């Protein structure tokens, strides 16, 4: 592994967009922000597995090998690899946790899933040697926090429904159908997509 700082004759002040790059063997150079995103993906996978272990009461240690997948698929952030990876993690949750359970560990697991998804999505927006401006990182962090806040809200709602404190009254069905209609309205295409 070799590291290199960008050099060149254009020296007209501090360059805040130049990043130290790391090259693995003869591969392409990777900027430190990109490696940071990959490590964030690893951390989110570890966090998800820890939550899964706590929620399921333990699993085969071979599952821990999945933690290195975000780092191993560093160059495939913009492909279907993260989809397969997180699909496998969700399948693992579905299989390993007891049926009908609502563990409190699902909330941090949901946050880890959101962080892992965002890390892969953000990594795909820039080339391997590209950096990430602070403004972009802040914007994405804000989005992830907002999205992650829905997890405890949904957990609280599900917990209340499950405990019987909230009963599914006709009003709830009306509200649900209204929400569905609103979702369809927002997701419509304008003009409507032509059938093939």
């Amino acid at each position: 592994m070799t590291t290199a700082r960008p050099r060149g004759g254009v020296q007209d002040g501090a360059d805040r967009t130049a990043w130290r790059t790391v090259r693995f063997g003869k591969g392409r150079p990777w900027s430190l922000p990109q490696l940071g995103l990959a490590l964030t993906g690893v951390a989110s996978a570890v966090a998800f597995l820890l939550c899964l272990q706590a929620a399921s009461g333990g699993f085969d240690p071979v599952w821990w090998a999945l933690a290195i997948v975000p780092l191993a698929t560093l160059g495939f952030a913009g492909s279907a690899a993260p989809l397969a990876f997180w699909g496998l993690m969700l399948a693992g949750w579905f299989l390993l946790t007891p049926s009908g359970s609502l563990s409190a560990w699902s909330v941090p697991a949901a946050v880890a899933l959101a962080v892992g998804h965002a890390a892969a999505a953000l990594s795909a927006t820039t080339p391997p040697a590209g950096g990430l401006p602070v403004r972009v990182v802040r914007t994405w962090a804000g989005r992830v926090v907002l999205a992650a806040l829905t997890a405890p809200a949904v957990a609280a709602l599900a917990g209340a429904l499950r405990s019987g404190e909230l009963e599914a009254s006709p009003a709830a069905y009306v509200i649900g159908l209204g929400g569905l209609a609103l979702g369809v309205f927002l997701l419509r295409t304008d003009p409507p997509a032509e059938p093939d």
Partner: protein
Amino acid sequence: MRPLLPRTTSSGPLGEWTATAAHTRAVLLAAGAAVAAVLGRRPDLLVLAAPLTVAAVWGHLARPRRAPEADVTLGRGTLREGDVANVVVRVRPASDADGVITLASTRWVERKPASGIAPVEAGVGAIALRSTRWGRRQIGTLSVTLSSAWGAYRVGPTDVPDLATATLPVPAAFDAAAPTPHPRGLVGLNRSSRTGSGSEFNTIRQFQPGDRLRRIHWPVSLRTGTLHVTSTYADEDAHVFVLVDAFSDLGPREGIDGRPTSLDVTVRAAGAISEHFLGSNDRLTLRTVGAANIPRLGLGSGTKHLRRVLESLASVAPASERRDDGQAAIRGVDPNALCLVLSPLIVPTTVGLAHTLAARGMTTVVVDTLPEHLTADPGSVYEALAWRIRLLSREAQVHSLVTRGVPVVPWRGPGSLDHVLRDLSRRAAAPRMGRRR
């Protein structure tokens, strides 16, 4: 093939927004988890799917509706070696879409950031580039990629039409204190052999009708009782003919920051000589041999002509016309011109042209532009031997020129030509033995 002209602006559509793998992932995982939660009565999966649902819906709602276009502007189309210019990309509409621009690596173009990747913020992105060698070239392929919120939709990477720049050679420092032989024109800084309106003192003589009153020398006039005036030598301009040998480009090409090749020295010396003589109001003609598609420059003077000369030098491609015998280049040259042949003296054609010019009775000087570092440190014993043979042959050619009376001076920057020009002026002013007819 026409020479590449500078192109400083380009624009074009970047394409349509398309859903990314990230958006597909968010939609599929959220939908799959929600379905599994409902069918498998697993509320925890609903919790897991909640942030992804938000990401999917947010990404879809915040998707840009209009196909973007990009306007690319290069700060300056004509640069000097080592100059820096900015490439600015403006995306229309200037939405809040984030993105990156990527400038591909090209020889003799340094990029800042060195990776060639710069962010697009508020619809504007910029990359600085530095041209490190003279010549005409494209700056490299510029690609634009834009992403919407959550990286859900993306445009590109789309290549925009290439921009091109002309990099003029940085003239080496050059100055000559010696006068130019055979001045003949009406304007200029060279002292004529005849008297006239000028600045250099000649003598004090009696007033004649037509003399300017401000030339009256009052002390002598009062002392002698008759009007005397100060007479001066006329100032004249000379015709300088510069012949550039582009048959060979010897040495490693390292640009402005490294060691020069023989053609680097030749071109920069030609630029320096042109700048000097055109700055002295002399007339100058530039011709090249061994390079194709160089526009034939006429006689000219002044800064505009200097610009034309430098642009012609920037168009030189080494050894692009090997069949050139140079006869066209030396056709129609003023017999009183000072001929400066800039050559590393490797190709015999140029030596032959110098012989031809001298045989026509023209004042010819050969400027040797072979860099010293080429022969100073040969890489191997065979290379040293090859250079030794080549230099022996070259020495014979130089000797033949000197024997004919053509001075060969190595290019050393300022003052390189002083000695030889002074000698030539002295020789031009000396009495000559002529045949009485």
